[in-house]
Structure formats: C-alpha cells, structure tokens
C-alpha cells in the first residue's frame, strides 16, 4: 500500500513538472501595435534659397503617418511606416518668378505632396541573443523619388546589459531637375539626375547601474551624385546693383559628400517622479561644416498615468565652405550656394510634451479584426508634443541673415489589439 502511494506521488509530481515546463515553453504572441501620428509645422524667415538668400521662407506642412508593428510569431516582427507630407511654400512659389516680386503667384511649385513607406522585417534568435533586420523603403513626390534598402544586426550580451548594433542603409534617388524659369535650358523639365547615399551606423548600448544607462553611436555617411538643389538661385558679386541685370546661376555643390556624426545618449532615473534624458552629438563633414548639439529632456510623472516632459535643444554649426550671402560670391568660385541651412547658425528648440497612458487604456472596443483574433482593440495612450524653434544666423557681413522662426505640433495615438 505504502509502495503504491509512493508510486502515485512520483507520477503526480512528474506530471506536474511536465505541465509546468509545457506552460513555460508556451509564450503568448505580443500584441499588434498601431501608432497614428500627426504633425503640423510652420516656419517663417527672410532668406529663401530659391531667391538667392533673400525673400520669404514662409511655409506650412501637414504630415499624418502610421506605424504598424505586427508580430508574425514569437520571434518575427513586421514594422510598416506609412505617411505623407503636404506642404505649401511661398519660397518655391518663386521658382517661376524671375523678377522675385513679393506677390502670391500660386504656381505649380507652391505646394506638393510626398508619399513614403518603410518596411522592416525583424527576426530574433533568442538563444544567440541576436536580432537581424531587413529594411526597404520608397518615397515619391513630384520631382524626387527615393528607393532605400538596408540590413541591421544586433547582438545582446548574456546578462542583457550590453548591446552592439550595426546597420547599413543605401538610398538610390532620382531628381527631375526643375530650374528657375529664367535659367531653364532647352531641355525644359526633362533633365534627370541620380543621387546615392550610403550610411553605416554602429551603436553600443550599456547598462551602467540600476538607474543609469547610456549609448554611444557613430555613423559614416557617403553621398554621391547631384547634391545641389536645382531651383536654388545664386547671385554674384559682379558690380551690378540692378538685381534684374545681376549675374545669377543655380546652386552648385561638389558631387560627393562625406559626413561623420557621433552621438552620446545618457538616461538617468533620478527618482520615482523624474527621469533625466541627455543627448550630445558631434558632427563633421567635408563641406566644411562642424556642429555640436546638446539636448536635455526631463520627464516628470505627475501621476502614474500622466507624464509631462519639458525639453531644450541647442545646436551650433559652422558654415559650409561654399556658402556666401546674396551677391557675395565671386564669378570665379567653383562651388556656390546661398542656402542659409548651410550657413553659420545656432538654433534653440524649447518645448514640452505630455503622455497620458492609463493602465487599462483610454478605451476598449471591438475592432475590425476582433472576430478573427478574439481580442478587443485597446486605445492605449495619447501623446502631444509642442516645440518652438528659433534659428539665429552668425554670418559675417550679413547681420540678421539666417534668422528663422518655426513651431511644430505633433500627436501620437497608440492602439493595440
């Protein structure tokens, strides 16, 4: 009898053990996540590159987009990013205005829409702690088409405190060259030029202690092909004071560019209410631009469901070797631009965001796939972000040149099912 009891006890224990291990090997599939994003951007300045560094830069842009993250199984994910930009620009309206008069022409160039999509297929090997990503993308607008492809590899340490990631991207772009109306040759709008960009990025992330983690990243970027914008005018120092008679050409830049940005990110969990997020970036390129960027963001937890985060960003850069303000380029210059984006500037961005994410979500409802999946759709969180952006020019012989004001308002609504 005692032998029989022992036998049953061993059998039950063995059964329980096998059940437990069966439960452990079963892993529920992650939820599909959809982010609906929206942005409104507006800017104004007086240094439009289309008019040779003078004239309006007034512009507004509306940009909705969608990010969908679909787990295909426990180790594979598909991430799709789809969106469009619809802009209206007073500056590009001047492409067809040889006299640069300050009137609203509403030409075909005054507004445009860009559609874009990027797809990433990600596969994890949990045993080897390796993640591989395959990326492809396309972006289409009236005069510019870009096709991209890339590969990413990430290896995590055994204790998951360190990760090294390497990735490469290649962009193959085609310009339809639209020159300012008075500089258009006999080819009209039938000119096409190529541009290729090759990016290699490596990032090392490291947990430093229970409250501090950091990442350091380096990039190498090589661009070749048509790097100058065909509809940017440049006016020369030819002694002519009458703008209509002054020598003008379209922007000309070298056909290769090499960039090296280096970044350092440091996040510190100060206490249960405040987190400090710091970022520094150094930039160098062979156009002659060097730059330093600092950013600090401090998320503050007002409530377990509500976080607000003020942020401040400061950027300072030197001018490209080929930049000069309106009418200051010599006729003998090999390369020339009056685009103030490439000039000596410092910029500040000041803003705040808030994120509301209740534990059980803002709402639950039956979505389009509920019948199939048996899951309800959860409106998980809402995030709003506002940034005020100021650019100040520091260009010699051109006080106030390069100044620009802008603001950006963004939303992100997250759903899971």
């Amino acid at each position, binding site marked *: 009898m005692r032998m029989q009891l022992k036998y049953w006890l061993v059998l039950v224990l063995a059964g329980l053990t096998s059940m437990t291990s069966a439960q452990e090997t079963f892993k529920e599939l992650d939820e599909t996540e959809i982010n609906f994003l929206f942005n409104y951007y507006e800017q104004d300045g007086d240094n439009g590159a289309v008019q040779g560094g003078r004239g309006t830069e007034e512009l507004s842009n509306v940009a909705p987009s969608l990010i969908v993250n679909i787990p295909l199984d426990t180790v594979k994910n598909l991430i799709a990013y789809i969106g469009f930009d619809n802009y209206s620009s007073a500056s590009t309206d001047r492409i067809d205005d040889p006299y640069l008069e300050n009137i609203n022409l509403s030409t075909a160039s005054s507004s445009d829409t860009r559609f874009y999509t990027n797809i990433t297929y990600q596969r994890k090997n949990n045993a080897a702690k390796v993640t591989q990503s395959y990326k492809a993308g396309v972006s289409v607008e009236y005069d510019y088409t870009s096709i991209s492809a890339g590969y990413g590899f990430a290896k995590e340490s055994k204790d998951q405190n360190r990760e090294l990631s390497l990735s490469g991207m290649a962009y193959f772009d085609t310009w339809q060259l639209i020159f300012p109306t008075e500089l258009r040759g006999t080819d009209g709008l039938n000119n096409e030029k190529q541009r290729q960009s090759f990016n290699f990025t490596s990032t090392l992330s490291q947990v430093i202690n229970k409250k501090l983690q*950091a990442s350091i990243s380096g990039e190498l970027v090589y661009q070749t092909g048509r790097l100058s914008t065909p509809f940017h005018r440049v006016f020369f120092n030819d002694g002519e004071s009458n703008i209509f008679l002054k020598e003008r050409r379209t922007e000309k830049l070298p056909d290769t560019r090499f960039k090296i940005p280096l970044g350092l990110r440091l996040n510190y969990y100060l206490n249960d209410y405040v987190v400090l997020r710091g970022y520094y970036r150094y930039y160098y390129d062979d156009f002659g631009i*060097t730059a330093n960027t600092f950013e600090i963001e401090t998320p503050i937890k007002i409530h377990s469901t509500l976080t607000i985060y003020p942020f401040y960003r400061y950027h300072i850069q030197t001018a490209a070797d080929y930049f000069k303000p309106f009418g200051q380029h010599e006729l003998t210059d090999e390369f020339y631009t009056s685009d103030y984006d490439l000039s000596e500037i410092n910029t500040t961005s000041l803003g705040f965001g808030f994120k509301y994410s209740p534990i059980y979500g803002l709402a639950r409802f039956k979505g389009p796939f509920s019948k199939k999946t048996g899951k309800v759709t959860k409106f998980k969180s809402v995030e709003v972000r506002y940034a005020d952006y100021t650019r100040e020019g520091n260009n010699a012989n051109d006080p106030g040149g390069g100044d620009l004001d802008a603001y*950006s308002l963004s939303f992100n609504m997250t759903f899971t099912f």
Partner: protein
Amino acid sequence: MKRNSLIIGIVILAGMAFQSCVSVEAYQKIYLNDENMELNARKVAVYETNFQAYREGASGANGGKTGGGCGCN
C-alpha cells in the same frame, strides 16, 4: 582647440562611465525598464528630427536635403 578638448572630454567621460558598469540582474531592472529610460528618441519626435535635418546643414544619416515638407524650401 576648445572644441577638440570638449570632444576628448566627452569621450573620456563616456569611457569612464562604461568602465564603472556593474552587472544588473533582470529582477533589478525596474527603473531601467521605465519607458522614459528608453535609449531612443520618442516616436512623436520624428517630425522634429526631420525638419531639423533640413534647417541645419549638419543633418544625420538620412538621404540629406531632398524634398517633401520643409525640405524643398
């Protein structure tokens, strides 16, 4: 010279920080797993990164100034 010193200083600081790392077990990562501690920019900040890349010639690793939105201006 000043700029080079700054970069060297930052690299040394980063090196020191990485040197002083301690092994943190999975169950000790309650603070590190906070969503605000993620070592990436926020999804909602992607638009700002985009217009900054255009308005500042020192853009990062995208295709460079191309078009769309504020890129053409």
